[in-house]
């Protein structure tokens, strides 16, 4: 019975999953290719033009952000990736109960000797597996990009004649030969493993959104209303985070936004710069004092919201009345 349900839900979801997964995979791959085409130095020139206040909107230094690793890590925060994961999570979560109720198909399904708990569990299992596949697609696309692209770098000759500038006190190095362009595989510049914390963070985000949407779906009977409520709360959460980042006086708003725990580039930075903290709950300074929460704490915050929401959804669905289709 579980196998039959599982098969049905996978069939129901496969096209959306393929579309979202394919988009994420392709986007992350292309993103790496674009990074390989643009010289890091030019990026620095662009970032130098930005006002200093812009730094507060990114959890990592601009200096690191213009590295190959930093720029690739931004893919996890790109609209397309977050949108695809959110679309999957909201579509599947809202379909679970209010979608089936609204279409009237839950009526015949629940008429079979299958418990409500099993219905919501199997449906949610497919959704969570889908979130995992999307997160893996993001990492897979990134890895594919990294292993299939190369970067061209200019290498200055080792022998240069320093010409002193009188009255200024500076020197101008004069190379003995023209700089050489060298192609190097991206994989020599970037370690794919540093993107795993961001991948887990993306999965945790999807789990949270899917769980919360399923919870809203479990008491509702109209899918459009479920989606409306979830999207509304989603937007409010994003606004809370942006406003919280914008000014120190309202920094406390960050505690009310779940998106505060979605910082994939920060976790890539930690994995890149301090690999020992890549999967830590806490980060400590050189003296061993607690500095801040580690990536794992943020993953767990998002995942716990998702899991608790799923549990609440199951309780609500098992106890609620199932109205006749309208």
């Amino acid at each position, binding site marked *: 019975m579980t196998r039959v*349900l599982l098969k*049905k839900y996978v069939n129901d979801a496969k096209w959306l999953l393929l579309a979202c997964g394919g988009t994420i995979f392709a986007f992350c791959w292309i993103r790496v290719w674009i990074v390989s085409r643009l010289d890091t130095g030019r990026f620095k020139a662009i970032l130098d033009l930005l006002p200093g206040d812009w730094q507060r909107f990114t959890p990592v230094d601009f200096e690191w952000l213009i590295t190959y690793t930093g720029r690739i890590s931004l893919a996890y925060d790109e609209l397309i990736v977050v949108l695809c994961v959110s679309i999957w999570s909201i579509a599947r979560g809202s379909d679970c109960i209010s979608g089936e109720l609204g279409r*009237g*198909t839950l*009526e*015949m*399904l629940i008429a*079979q000797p*299958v418990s409500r708990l099993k219905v919501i569990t199997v449906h949610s299992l497919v959704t969570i597996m889908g979130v995992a596949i999307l997160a893996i697609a993001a990492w897979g696309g990134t890895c594919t990009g990294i292993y299939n692209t190369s970067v061209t770098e200019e290498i200055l000759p080792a022998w240069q004649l320093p010409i002193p500038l009188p009255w200024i006190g500076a020197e101008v190095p004069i190379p003995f030969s023209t700089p050489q362009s060298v192609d190097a595989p991206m994989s020599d510049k970037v370690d794919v493993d540093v993107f795993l914390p961001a991948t887990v963070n993306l999965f945790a985000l999807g789990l949270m959104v899917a769980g919360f949407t399923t919870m809203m779906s479990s008491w509702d009977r109209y899918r459009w209303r479920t989606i409306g409520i979830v999207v509304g709360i989603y937007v409010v959460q994003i606004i809370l985070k942006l406003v919280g980042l914008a000014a120190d006086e309202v920094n406390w708003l960050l505690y009310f936004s779940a998106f505060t725990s979605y910082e994939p580039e920060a976790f890539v930075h930690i994995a890149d710069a301090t690999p020992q903290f890549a999967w830590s709950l806490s980060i400590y300074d050189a003296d061993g004092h607690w500095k801040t929460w580690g990536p794992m704490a943020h993953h767990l915050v998002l995942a716990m919201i998702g899991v608790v929401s799923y549990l609440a959804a199951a309780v609500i669905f098992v106890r609620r009345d199932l109205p006749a289709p309208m």
Partner: protein
Amino acid sequence: MNGTTVLDQAVSESGDSLVTTKSLGKRYRQVDALRDCTLGVARGEVFGLLGPNGAGKTTLLRLILGYLRPTSGQATVDGLDATHQSVAVRRRVAYLPGEARLFRHMRGQDILRFFAEVRPEGDFRRSLALSERFELDLSRRVAFMSTGMRQKLALSIVLATETPLLILDEPTANLDPTVRGDVIDLVADAKRQGRTVIFSSHVLSEVEEVCDRVVILRGGKLVHTQDISALRRCHRIRAAITGAPPLPPVALQDQLDVRSPAANQIEIDTYGELGPLLGWLATLPLTEMRIEPIGLRAVYDRFHAPRGGLPTQADGDDQPAATGLRPDGSQDRKPGGPVVSHPGATRHDAGSPTPDDCLPAEGSSLSAESAGGRTGDDLR
């Protein structure tokens, strides 16, 4: 006894009943969708549910299936609590919803296979056979099927399931007359196999044809139980008569109501076998005599029709009027006709209208039959 009858109470408490409800109620804020409903459905019985939209039929079915949590009372199927042992209950039930909606993106064949596989006792081949009988094109996706085709598909799923209890909520809606006939035949087959059927429909002729017993619901309350075999023995004789209406013989008085709706007209309602009556009728100066069965429509209209009186099956179509009660719950009477009451009415609601009751009493032979063969004394 509030909201119940001796018969229902007896069936409900007997070990023979497959479905029982005891003081079952469902309240939505200020609205009572179902109130104090006590009934029993005997094993092997085809049990009809009648009432206009909003009367509480579907609420009752959903409570039995565990879709809704009762506000009061309890429903059991085969001794299992419908709320707390819902899965076990549904293992014993095949349910056709009033408006069966199936997965629109799936093809008919895939739908049949899914529902056959999701149930341990599901039978795909039987579903296929039924769909062939209904001349259903299984290669189409549900989204591209007509309403009638979807109903046939749902029937192929539900009727293929070999469960002790079959609950059909308006199974013949949207079907052509041929398939309607097939559905009625299949219900009769289920009965022959010893299965119990709860049959909800607005088509009174179907209910009368297929059911052993029906209950009528009004405003969320069970107001009447009717044994169909007893109903089949009820007739109305209409004739022209010269002279005053005669008094019936003493031996037949308990089985007759005689009235004169107009000058030189006579109407006689009979409640038993016609044979003993015919001899007496032959002695009367009657002309233009017509004998008509008093159908379920007449019983239904006592509770739901806009006008009173006792129409017979020949009086109109099967679709009853949905209104007709005065605000105080009383009902109009047929003009010119005296109020005739009879102890045989199986009444539930003290506040219900008091139309011409023409039916045998609880505990009489009809009640005993519908209670699985026990005698009237047993039922009391």
